[in-house]
């Protein structure tokens, strides 16, 4: 999953790589307001093999990119997200909208039909929703 963000008026461009996106997904999904490295590691460890130092470095990188803020708490840092997932997505929406290609007819449709080539992407999205529904017990 790759995102580009232009935060604020300065037009900072950020790109989230796969692990960064996975960490932010944990932060938003678990609604972690203020967290230490170990709290993210605890969730991520259930999904993949990952070392403490990897999470620590990635969190530090997210802080450098301006996605997270941090305050020192003794020997460690406590992080918090600057943006909600919705705000983050809205900030990234410009890239997607700039590349949007649509029909020219004055028809209002729920979603435009995609080509066969996009079928696998639709399958992935459906799987993602099913997974989220299972997690939420819906």
């Amino acid at each position, binding site marked *: 999953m790759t995102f580009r963000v232009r935060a*604020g*008026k300065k037009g900072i461009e950020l790109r989230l790589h796969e692990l960064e996106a996975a960490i932010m997904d944990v932060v*938003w*999904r678990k*609604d972690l307001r203020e967290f230490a490295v170990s709290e993210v590691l605890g969730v991520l460890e259930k999904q993949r093999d990952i070392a403490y130092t990897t999470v620590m470095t990635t969190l530090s990188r997210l802080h450098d990119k301006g996605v997270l803020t941090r305050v020192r708490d003794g020997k460690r840092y406590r992080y918090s997200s600057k943006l*909600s*997932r*919705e*705000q983050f*997505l*809205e*900030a*990234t*929406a*410009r890239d*997607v*909208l*700039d*590349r*949007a*290609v*649509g*029909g*020219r*007819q*004055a*028809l*209002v*449709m*729920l*979603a*435009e*039909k*995609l*080509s*066969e*080539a*996009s*079928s696998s*992407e*639709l399958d992935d*999205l*459906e799987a*993602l*929703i099913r997974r*989220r*529904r299972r997690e*939420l017990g*819906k």
Partner: protein
Amino acid sequence: MSEIAFPFLGTAFVVLVVLPACALIAKALLWTLEHVETRGPLHGLRLRYLVLTGSSLLPLAWLLSAALHQAETGRSVVSCLFDHDTAALCFEPGLFTALLSALIVWSSVKELRHTRGARPSSSPNATALQQRMVRIVSTRWELQALAHSIYVTDELDYAIGVQGFLAPHVVVGLAYARGISDEELACALGHEAEHVRARDPLRYLVLSLALAVNPFGRQWLQPHATSWLAAREAHCDREAVIRGAGPLALAQALIRAARPGVCPAAALGARSASLLKLRVEMLMAFEERTPTRCCHREPSSILIVAALFIVAALLPHHAGTAALDALHFGTEHALHFFWR
């Protein structure tokens, strides 16, 4: 010769210089609006719509009204057009109006040929689906407004959408509705209810015509229009969730609607799934935290466009037609200069 110079050269000047200049100014304005909006591109949609449509429609309304004003001789414009011996002054602006109107009608008809909605069906299957939807609508307060404005079509490629420029109504595809649950169908109807409330078919039509009458509208403004349309869809998703639709059920309904149909997609391979992904991810974010309404309820943008259109049409009758005079004399001088 000079009598018909203004109508023809003036129309050419409007089409080749005035409208493209307006499109360029609109493009610069839209670019600025899209980039200074700190809340993201899903906000400020009303102003962007006004720029997109107003940049073509308002100058045309002014020019047509000004030319008609100059053609006024106390008789109808039509008789003035055919009897220019007794009204030399009225012939030129009259013919200018006729030529400009013909161009507008021609480009509008060409545009409207692309617009084709789905035909409602009254087959037994359609009636059964209609009853299912009546049941769904009756149990959800947020869908009450749609109680008498849902139709069913058995066109295979049609999922769900809103049609009708003056009386918008939701049209649901039989095959699409069969493949989704009641909850998903209710959420999809919730999304469409927002389009109905905002009279989006009419708004989209006006936008489409505004781009069509400007020879550079498609080239320069279409990307901004596409981005606006996409943002509008995301906005309707948010409104549906605020009004009670389940975000994940709506996301599921979206994906089902985007599934390739029997016929190949209109722009095979050109449409990427990234916009759909964005909408699905936004809905998943809404599942974590219920969204809040982004802006206060303001007058509908179609009403604002209509009001501005009327103002532009009335302006020449009160504030004079100096710009049209300049265009008139300019074209005649240009003709003399090149003709001598």
